[in-house]
């Protein structure tokens, strides 16, 4: 009933998790059965170990939160030699979010992850707003976005999802550029660049001053962008941005998403993903829908 195909990936349901909100899955194993997810996206992985940004790194805002973690991670080698072996037995699609500061770094990471049997896809992060070099810089101009995707396409042979930034004038234009460069799918939206000030201390709330806004606050923006992109490209779209409930997920599917990612909601309820899976099934039953694909992109 909930099965969907995302390019070559077969998902048992459309529910995945957003990079950076779900660690390597293991952190949530006490709360949910990871095998029930359509897939999960592990945290942003770079060519070498990164310490990330100084702290404080987050602040809660109305119906959302700002974060500026700055891609703290152990590097691709540590992922391939340690983390991968702890999670590869799971019966779900494990997707690695690939990040970098240069085209060479993106390619290096993608090439190493390509060799891992149990990783059927990568999500190319050309939209991180919290790193000084690279990141969102690659995702805000169609030419640059196409260039990095084309380079990774040459070295990566499995499903290539490209994660798009909402911090652009026309997201459909970027989506078309990466589709033309060989992307198999696009996921959107990454966080919206934001800022908050502690007025008593007269200082920015975060050490990095600006950060990425996520949570229910961004959902209407995300639904709008998913709808625009789904109309503009032929490749499948993964929708994310503030999804907390099954109803939110269904809204994204109607807007044109084939699958969705749950992010900030994992912090509110560590079992949110499974509740969304169960809720989607109930919704389909109550509405006489035998195949969730019937509602994808109906708007």
């Amino acid at each position, binding site marked *: 009933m909930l099965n969907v195909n995302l390019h070559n990936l077969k998902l048992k349901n459309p529910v995945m998790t957003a990079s*950076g*909100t*779900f*660690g390597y899955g293991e*952190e*949530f194993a*006490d*709360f949910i059965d990871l095998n029930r997810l359509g897939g999960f996206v592990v*945290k942003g992985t770079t060519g070498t170990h990164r*310490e*990330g940004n100084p*702290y*404080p*790194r*987050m*602040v*809660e805002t109305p*119906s*959302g*939160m700002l*974060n500026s*973690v700055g891609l*703290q991670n152990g590097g691709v080698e540590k992922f391939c030699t340690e983390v991968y072996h702890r999670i590869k037995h799971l019966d779900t699609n494990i997707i690695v979010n690939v990040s970098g500061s240069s085209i060479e770094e993106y390619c290096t990471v993608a090439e190493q992850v390509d060799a891992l049997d149990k990783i059927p896809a990568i999500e190319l992060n050309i939209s991180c707003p919290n790193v000084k070099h690279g990141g969102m810089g690659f995702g805000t101009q169609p030419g640059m976005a196409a260039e990095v995707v084309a380079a990774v396409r040459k070295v990566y042979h499995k499903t290539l999802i490209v994660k798009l930034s909402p911090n652009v004038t026309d997201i459909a234009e970027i989506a078309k550029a990466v589709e033309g460069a060989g992307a198999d799918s696009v996921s959107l939206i990454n966080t919206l660049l934001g800022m908050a000030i502690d007025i008593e201390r007269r200082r920015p709330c975060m050490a990095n001053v600006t950060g990425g806004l996520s*949570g*229910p606050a961004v959902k209407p923006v995300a639904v709008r962008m998913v709808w625009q992109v789904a109309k503009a490209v032929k490749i499948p779209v993964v929708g994310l941005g503030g999804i*907390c409930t099954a109803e939110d997920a269904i809204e994204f599917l109607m807007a044109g998403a084939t699958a969705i990612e749950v992010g*900030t909601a*994992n*912090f*509110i*309820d*560590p*079992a949110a993903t499974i509740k969304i899976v169960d809720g989607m099934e109930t919704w389909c039953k109550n509405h006489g829908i035998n195949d969730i694909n019937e509602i994808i992109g109906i708007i």
Partner: protein
Amino acid sequence: MKEIHNFTILQRRQLGSQYFALTLQHAGNMQPVLPGQFVEVQVDGVREVMLRRPISIHDADPERGTLTLLVQTVGRGTRRLAELREGDRLNLVYPLGHGFTTDIAPGSRVLMVGGGAGIAPLLMLSKVLKAKGVACTVLLGGRTAELIPVRDEFEPYATVGIATDDGSLGHHGLVTTHPAFAEPYDMIYTCGPTPMMKAVARAAAERGVCCEVSLENMMACGVGACLCCVTDTDQGHRCVCKEGPVFDISTMKKWYQC
């Protein structure tokens, strides 16, 4: 094993103007909890306070299946928690984090230094250590007497010393200038305001005494997934929620020396 559970508020005690304590009843078999661990409390989901709030475990009774949280009203989240009444439900993710070392030889002498809301996790710690035959001294500091709640609760388990900034109770001055602070100990634990913990850590390092600090930070996930709550350590950034909140100062020179 961590779990998500709806506890019922069995008792609410107001402790002066800023503090209150909630005793929570588990409906079934409560997971084992250790001194220094914490819980993530759901305040009201996405309506006004979206993220959970990390609150340290003040006391636990595994037989009765109860947890007690000591909370200081400081911001939006804790103000909403203060409105809860007996009989209300409270959803917790627990037990979280790495707690205090309790593997201490009988007959040892330990010091616990707590300031403000940081006194909360020291009660369960002193209970557990007292049961092991460890002699505990607890020094509690605050701006005024009113801001040192629950000092009586420590009396059965520890020798209690008080220090207040205004001299309204006990020693007049910082806890680190209390006469009992200068005595010899086998181990020192501290939880409270950062400047106080750094002063305690530096003093312990100078004396060559083992010391653990329990840190606090803005937190989102509570399980080491989002990397929002990091602190500096000698090994780089580490999550307060997962690698902490309790850290051994032998790995924290970079933190306490600045």
